[in-house]
């Protein structure tokens, strides 16, 4: 999955991020995407538990991670990854995010 790709081929993983997610991550880390992605501390790769899609947006729930994706003109892109649930229906706390 995404975290495995981020560990083995960060360049390709960067290409799968949405433009906003990529630029916010680079800005926050003050480093190029590949470096920022390696330093983001994404959870270890795990099996997919469920996938749900509504209109242009999707959520992929893994054993040890939650990833948000969206369907852009060029295909599906990761808008947030390394997400941990928050109490009371609050938005997930994500290692990488940005629309």
């Amino acid at each position, binding site marked *: 999955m995404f975290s495995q790709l981020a560990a083995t081929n960060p360049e390709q993983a960067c290409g799968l991020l*949405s*433009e*906003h997610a990529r630029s916010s991550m680079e800005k926050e880390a003050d480093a190029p995407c590949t470096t920022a992605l390696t330093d983001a501390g994404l959870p270890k790769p795990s099996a997919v538990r469920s996938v*749900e899609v*509504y*209109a*242009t*947006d*999707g*959520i992929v729930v893994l054993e040890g991670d939650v990833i*948000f994706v*969206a*369907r*852009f*003109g060029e295909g599906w892109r990761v*808008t*947030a990854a390394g*997400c941990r*649930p928050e109490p009371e*229906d*609050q*938005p*997930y706390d*994500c290692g990488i*995010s*940005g*629309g």
Partner: protein
Amino acid sequence: MSAHAPRRAERRSFLRDNGLGLFFGAILLLSLAGQALVGTADYNEGARIAGLPTLTVGQYVTSSYFGVDVAENWQSEYLQFLLFILATVWLIQRGSPESKKAEDVGRESDEEQQVGPYAQQRSPAWAKASGWRRSLYSSSLGLVMGAIFLLSWGAQLVAGTSAMNSRRLQNLQNPSSVLDYAHSPEFWNRTLQNWQSEFLAVGSMVVFSIYLRERGSPESKPVGAPHDTTALEG
């Protein structure tokens, strides 16, 4: 006279005989096309700012965002006319051309409704019939309007759930169920804001038409008709 003249006259006659239905059909399609175009532009404006995917017009009209906006209006229109059709069976508004007279309140007699033995030669077959067919046909307008209302309201619920979940995922929240959406303020806000406007429009037409006139319209009394004349269309 050319050989095409009778066909042209036939076409003109068809247009004249069906002008009202064709006019509303045409402005419905124009309005839907306009809604599709400006709806896409509106959605894309917000999506660009948030760095989210933009949609083509084709993608937008097949999305739950367009679906919920269309369905919420359709259900309220069909509910409005369903209630108007049913309420005018038993309720009257003295002086209104939209109301029947006090003495006619209720389902009326078979003779007045021209059913069964009182059916005319050109009456619909099921009006001449007896039993369930006559009963069903006697309520067919309300049943069909009610069915379309329920289907549209159901479509609003399903499309609304999907559109809300799309927004929840954009906000990095978990998606909700249809049942959750059915209890949500958004569902009822969308529903009631449409209902109130429909009820206002019908109620004001019923009352305004007591005192105001539109010469030549069957929805109005004749211009010279007294204000207290009920059930008279001009």
